[in-house]
């Protein structure tokens, strides 16, 4: 099968936009991505739209009602926090399968504030605070503490992830925050679920991101190869059975499985990757994924953050966008926003936060329940 390329990609600045509708937010990113490659909605042969909050609300069609109802097929996708990556992958697959030459993928989300998860009082009584905690900060705190149990990873090491990612976002105008948070600030912030303080939880924001994907033939015909990004691997996994899965969502096994498949598909290994945008929904989660993605041996993740290897300028920079912790985490948009970030570096256009000489990058998202999406991207030759 011929290769598929990202020819246009962009995101809006993440923030809080209660006055806008979900389709309006999605259409903004769609138009930015179209402008990025000089195409219009009339050139698009299909739309793949990722959104979680209005999963039954035909968001893709409503985006077309904002920017051009051309009658193309629309697929609406929901896959927890892997929603955007799944929409992108469906778009990619349609081009790889030669169904279409050029398609649009959009991810969009409008978020409320406050704790996610832990609700679900269907019948009987609420179980939150009675049978432990089902909030997302707690679930990821427990996943982090499993790493502490195995390798002695400390609260301070988890906190350093937030220091790094907040620092990175000071160089990203599209991030929600541009604020330095020193270690003591992170560790002394309000404790939400130990070991995650408030500054170690991703920010609930509104946002959207979009990508135009084209076949090699079409990208050449349109003269878009000079800025094109080759999709070298696209992998989606669900969580294989694990003995504790009923009470402890497993974000590790599905990531390891996806990473192995993605490296094989791309014909590269972790050492070939120049930058990574991974799913730091909580600071504890980022630590786990250093090992899950093969950036270091098991048990070495704490050392990686201590030694600065994952910071901008280090051996393998992780989340130079600021990550979900500081750029923000609009669930359905996240998986395309991280493709925008990596693509921007591969194009050498990331400004102050540019990873010098970046040639190959990897994006990773996890949707609890669970879904893992990994993409490996490379600047077109």
């Amino acid at each position, binding site marked *: 099968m011929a290769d598929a390329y990202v020819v246009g990609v962009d995101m809006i600045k993440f923030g809080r936009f209660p006055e806008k509708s979900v389709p309006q937010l999605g259409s903004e990113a769609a138009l930015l991505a179209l402008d990025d490659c000089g195409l219009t909605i009339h050139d698009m042969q299909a739309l793949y739209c990722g959104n979680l909050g209005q999963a039954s609300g035909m968001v893709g069609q409503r985006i077309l009602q904002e920017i051009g109802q051309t009658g193309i097929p629309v697929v609406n996708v929901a896959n927890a926090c892997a929603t955007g990556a799944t929409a992108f992958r469906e778009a990619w697959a349609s081009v790889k399968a030669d169904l279409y030459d050029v398609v649009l993928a959009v991810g969009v989300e409008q978020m409320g504030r406050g*704790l996610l998860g*832990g*609700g679900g009082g269907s*019948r*009987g*009584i*609420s*179980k*939150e*605070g*009675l*049978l*432990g*905690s089902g*909030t997302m*900060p*707690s679930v990821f*705190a*427990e*996943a*982090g*503490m*499993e790493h*502490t*149990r195995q390798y002695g990873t400390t*609260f301070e090491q988890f906190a350093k992830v937030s220091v790094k990612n907040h620092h990175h976002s000071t160089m990203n105008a599209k991030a929600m925050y541009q604020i330095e948070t020193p270690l003591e600030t992170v560790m002394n912030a*309000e*404790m*939400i*679920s*130990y*070991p*995650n303080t408030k500054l170690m939880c991703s920010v609930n924001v509104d946002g959207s991101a979009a990508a135009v994907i084209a076949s090699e033939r079409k990208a050449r015909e349109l003269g878009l190869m000079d800025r094109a990004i080759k999709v070298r691997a696209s992998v989606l996994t669900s969580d294989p*059975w694990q*003995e*504790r899965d*009923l*009470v*402890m969502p497993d974000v590790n096994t599905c990531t390891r499985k996806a990473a192995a498949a993605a490296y094989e598909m791309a014909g590269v290994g972790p050492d070939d990757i120049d930058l990574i945008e991974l799913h730091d929904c909580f600071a504890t989660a980022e630590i786990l994924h250093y090992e899950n993605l093969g950036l270091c041996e098991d048990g070495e993740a704490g050392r990686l953050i201590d030694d600065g290897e994952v910071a901008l300028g280090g051996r393998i920079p992780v989340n130079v966008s600021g990550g979900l912790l500081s750029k923000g985490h609009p669930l359905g948009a996240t998986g395309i926003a991280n493709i925008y970030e990596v693509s921007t570096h591969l194009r050498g256009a990331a400004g102050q936060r540019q990873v010098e000489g970046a040639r190959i990058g990897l994006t990773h998202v996890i949707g609890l329940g669970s879904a893992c999406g990994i993409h490996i991207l490379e600047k077109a030759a």
Partner: protein
Amino acid sequence: MADRPLPAVSHLKIPDEGDPYLEGSRCGVCGATFLGARHNCSKCGARGKMQTVQLSNKGELYSYCIVHRSFPGIDVPYVSAIVDLEGGGTVKGNLIDVEPDPAKIDFGMPVDVVYDDALGRKDADGNSYLSYFFKPRTQ
């Protein structure tokens, strides 16, 4: 309204005679343990080979977190714990009778599953509930 407490979750069983317990299912093919009743095994895919088992009230702490912020009306801080039961099965619940301090909580510490009123919570019909908790094993 029921004349006695209802179980907080369906895999908590309250027999007419004797003590409450947690019920699970074990796959007769691969041995995987699940909470509550089910027909098929999601580990090996075996169909109709599940056996109902009574889960142990003894276990050990696998992982935990200390919850400091929750929804309105929920007392914090408290310890949310993941416990591996002897003989199979993993359950989640509140670890009680410990200080909510990581220095006072040891991974692998032995715990007992104990049964008590569900923190006074009642449903819309005024029914009381029985729940389970984890308590550090003293001896």
